């Protein structure tokens, strides 16, 4: 392991988050077993009050995950100088097989926490708290996910050896390399652009449609997930090229670097917000028939969908701006 402040901070953060949720787990079980909204007993009152703690905890975990995600990528990028062949975050994450899974797990935890908070939000607006049991069962699912993310991170950091020769974005995302990422990067700009804009348009359209008509919620959520993937593919295959003004630099992380004016954040922040909102819409759909939620779910879901639609629109506009303002020309007019 490399003994480094940011690594310690990350492990500390995710360790504490796991410990907090684990400590809360028995109470979640108690809520599942003993919840009785009709009862006026002191025990029921106590359970009700505990739910406030869980909501606060989950929100805290989500915020921490988001910051940790940034710190993780940030730090991976910085550590590149310590590994032969690594020039940015990609190389560092490739030092051992746990790097990318750890990153993905962290993103997954963020989206799960966001979905949970969406469910929590609608539940607390119905006077009979209809989803309490579902919610706490879901919280118990979030715990192993969080633990997995922690373990992957731990394994990744423990497995870091400074003398490892790693491959960097150049080789991972270049056209000759094999593997999913490389194939994605090797997409020709024109089809990649088409894919990017079509999927984003569909996602923005569907979420907007859902926000207006309150129909097709699942489709909107699925389109959001697709839009997330499509945007990442788009970044890999053409947005990054325009940003770097270099026909072979496909890295999705370097755009976060100061050399490129931190421009990546303009893309990623709306993307993550929109996707969290879009997936939240999906997380709410199973409950739209619950009696006390008939009014609440569609309203909240529509607001989330609005947010998602706006986010994807923003992503598309920003990507377009990057492309138009670049000196690089990939597609001849």
């Amino acid at each position, binding site marked *: 392991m490399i*003994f480094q*402040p940011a690594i310690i901070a990350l492990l500390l953060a995710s360790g504490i988050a796991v410990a*907090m949720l684990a400590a809360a787990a028995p109470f979640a079980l108690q809520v599942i077993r003993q919840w009785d909204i009709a009862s006026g007993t002191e025990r029921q009152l106590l359970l009700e009050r505990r739910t*406030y703690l869980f909501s*606060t905890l989950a929100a805290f975990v989500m915020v921490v995950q988001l910051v940790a995600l940034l*710190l993780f990528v*940030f*730090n991976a990028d910085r550590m590149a100088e*310590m590994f032969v062949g690594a020039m940015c975050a990609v190389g560092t994450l490739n030092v051992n097989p746990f790097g990318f899974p750890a990153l993905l797990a962290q993103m997954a935890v963020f989206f799960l926490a966001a979905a949970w908070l969406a469910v929590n939000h609608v539940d607390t607006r119905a006077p009979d708290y209809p989803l309490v049991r579902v919610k706490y069962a879901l919280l118990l699912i979030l715990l192993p996910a969080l633990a997995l993310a922690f373990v992957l991170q731990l394994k990744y950091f423990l497995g870091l050896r400074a003398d490892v020769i790693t491959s960097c974005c150049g080789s991972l995302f270049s056209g000759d390399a094999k593997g999913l990422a490389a194939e994605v990067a090797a997409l020709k700009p024109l089809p990649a652009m088409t894919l990017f804009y079509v999927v984003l348009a569909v996602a923005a359209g569907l979420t907007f449609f859902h926000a207006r008509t309150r129909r097709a919620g699942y489709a909107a959520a699925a389109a959001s997930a697709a839009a997330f993937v499509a945007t990442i593919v788009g970044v890999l295959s053409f947005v990054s090229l325009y940003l770097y003004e270099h026909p072979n630099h496909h890295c999705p992380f370097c755009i976060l670097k100061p050399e490129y004016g931190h421009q990546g954040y303009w893309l990623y922040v709306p993307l993550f917000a929109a996707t969290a909102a879009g997936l939240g819409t999906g997380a709410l759909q199973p409950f739209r028939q619950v009696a006390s939620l008939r009014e609440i779910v569609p309203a909240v879901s529509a607001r989330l969908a609005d947010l998602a639609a706006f986010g994807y629109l923003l992503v598309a506009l920003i990507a377009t701006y990057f492309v138009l303002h670049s000196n690089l020309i990939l597609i001849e007019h």
Partner: protein
Amino acid sequence: MNAWIEKQRHLIDFTLASLARRKAKNLGLLLVYALLVFVLASVALYTHALRQEAAQVLKQSPEIVLQRMVAGRHDLIPPGYLEKIGRIRGVQSIEGRLWGYYYDPVVKANYTFMAPAAEAVKPGTLVVGPAVARSRGLAPGNTISFRAYSGKLFSFTVVGVLPHASELVSADLVLMGEADFRAFFEYPAGQHTDIALSVANPLEVRTVAAKLASALPDSRPILREEVLRTYASVFDWREGIVLALLSAAIFAFAILAWEKASGLSAEEKREIGILKAIGWETGDVIKMKLWEGGLISLTAFLAGFVAAYLQVFRFGAPLFEPVLKGWAVLYPRFELVPAIDGLQVATLFFFTVFPYMAAVLVPIWRAAITDPDSAMRS
């Protein structure tokens, strides 16, 4: 949305007022908090500045240094090695270097004596590093004598002091002419300390090193990028160790925060009871208390960070120098170039704000679930 913002504004208003009303209680916590940030930020800023400095210095050093090994120990380069290397593709220049260490019993410090390649320093004269000049009180024109290891006394005239800019490495440097150097150390003629090679293309460095190793099996090529990496990890490691040592302090601080947050005074409990009775919801109280924690964190963080910045870059980090620097006996006294690093600020935030917020979460909740009817029962 507007109502939401307005509500947060109200909550912040109330929080500020209640913080002001309990100055004594909050001031203590704020001080400890700011002190913790100050210590951690000093460490972080200081090591980062050192790292920058080292990187700056190494930028000017050769890509490869070749050392001869005898029985696993660094030995002198015999004559003829330079010729043996001959031409390697990609190598821009090769030169034999002459340098050694000298212990100065007068100030009990080690100097690095060096003979620059080109006859830059005339016989009988010296150019000294700023730390040497300081410790021996030297100015250009002064004369200084050193007793060589052989027992003979040598006198030199100081003709120059090296500039301040890269003091970390040049501080203990003494530059002299080649002839003087060989005479002073009784260095065998034709031999060198090591060989420096400069390679233009970074991708070729490893190939060149491999060729060197096979041409001169008794020698060891040292690559600049490896030195850089080692430095980086040494600094990170030191910073990590210091932080790990300080983690006890962070832990203690978290306990203090927990204590403070859960040790609500009767007055505060009464207040929360009243707020809930007159229409504040548990969630509102939690939000208000989170704002309180956030405001305290922000204030402490800013205060601690600014103080650390001043300490490190204005006053030369008097508190941490001995722990973090430690290159040689002769500590360079140098002005660090101010450098703030986003990653470090983020890390620091994680080390301080995160444990604080995590520690106060449960006590905040405990306070917030005060019975609303307690206001009636008092």
